[in-house]
């Protein structure tokens, strides 16, 4: 029998919670406040690869104001960042550097693949030097389609990521990677081969889409 307390047992009854709140007593769970703090203070890594980066920059500026979501501090160093926004075409020549930057980020870390190129290669998919999606090498949390996606789409991806963070359980089998000592934190950096990147994808992260033919 599993002796661990199931997460739902932590929660205080909603009615009781409201009654207590009226009296000036706030109740929460450790998980709730931990995730609440994390989701409202995401520090993205400041780097862009192509035109999507322009939309990302627009998102951070006054009109769209990413600061409303607590993610205005773009860091120029992977050591200080916990969100990587892959904004633009990932060429095969650039892919090892992107993976290496991701490896150098401290856990917990998240990835948003922004735009058609970052998620699949986009209009350059058949090109000889374009990676067909960064999810071949690193785990992507949110994919945004679009060419380029509008700032609203990036904000939506941010809110999706915030929901994902707030839903993370701190214990149990579904706990996130950074709380699981056995889960990998570093991913294989591809090497430049004679004809292609080696390996062409990381099988622990990505599997080719299964084809169903009629």
């Amino acid at each position: 029998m599993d002796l661990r307390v199931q997460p739902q047992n932590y929660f205080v009854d909603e009615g009781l919670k409201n009654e207590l709140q009226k009296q000036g007593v706030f109740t929460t769970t450790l998980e709730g406040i931990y995730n609440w703090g994390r989701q409202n203070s995401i520090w993205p890594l400041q780097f862009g690869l192509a035109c999507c980066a322009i939309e990302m920059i627009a998102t951070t500026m006054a009109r769209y104001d990413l600061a409303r979501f607590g993610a205005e501090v773009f860091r120029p160093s992977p050591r200080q960042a916990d969100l990587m926004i892959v904004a633009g075409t990932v060429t095969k020549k650039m892919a090892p550097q992107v993976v290496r930057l991701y490896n150098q980020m401290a856990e917990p870390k998240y990835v948003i693949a922004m735009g058609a190129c970052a998620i699949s290669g986009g209009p350059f998919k058949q090109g000889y030097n374009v990676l067909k999606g960064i999810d071949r090498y690193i785990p992507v949390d949110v994919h945004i389609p679009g060419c380029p996606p509008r700032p609203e789409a990036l904000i939506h991806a941010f809110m999706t990521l915030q929901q994902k963070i707030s839903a993370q359980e701190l214990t149990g089998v579904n706990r996130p990677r950074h709380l699981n000592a056995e889960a990998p934190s570093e991913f294989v950096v591809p090497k430049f081969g004679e004809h292609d990147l080696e390996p062409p994808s990381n099988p622990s992260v990505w599997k080719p889409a299964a084809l169903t033919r009629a």
Partner: protein
Amino acid sequence: METLEQIKSRLTHALPGARMEIIPNDSPSGQLSLLVDGAHAVAVAKFLRGDLELRLDYCSNATGIDWPEAVIKTKIKKKVVVDGAEKEVEEILETLRSGCLEVVYHLYSMTKKHGPVILRLRTENRTDKTQLPSLTPVWRSCEFQEREIFDLYGIGFAGHPDLRRILMWYGFKDFPMRKDYVAPDDFEYEPTPHDEVLEKTRQHSAREVKL
């Protein structure tokens, strides 16, 4: 500006040994270009830059072309006598075109405000004799573009100050812009394949079935 014929006649006068040929152009632009042999390319370039009439001091663009070996079919109308009556018969003439790699330079003059004059250089073949003289010593703006041609087509530029790959990584063996380049088979599902991609899909799925 002078016509290309005039430039060519002055060039043959100034450089007696140089082999030159005007390449016709059937497209609506009708832009002619001058094919120069590799051995005299630098001398021709220096002449075009230094000539007081032309002063072609700016190379705006250098690019490469791959001409694989091909059979060229041309239709010829022939008059044949059949049973005493003259008849016009179409005949298809097949000629084998030998393959080569080509570099094209577009030259302008900043001081005279005219141009372009188009230069073409061709290698002897596509496999081992792919050396051409570099025109970077004449026009500095060719430097990166010749590196790009070297990177993507595999043309070696003799006299280039810094001939390295520029877009692909060091250690990459292929030349991706050549017609016979085969991309690595990292094909995946495409919702609406067409043309070349459809062909790729067929090859990929045939391989999959075989396995």
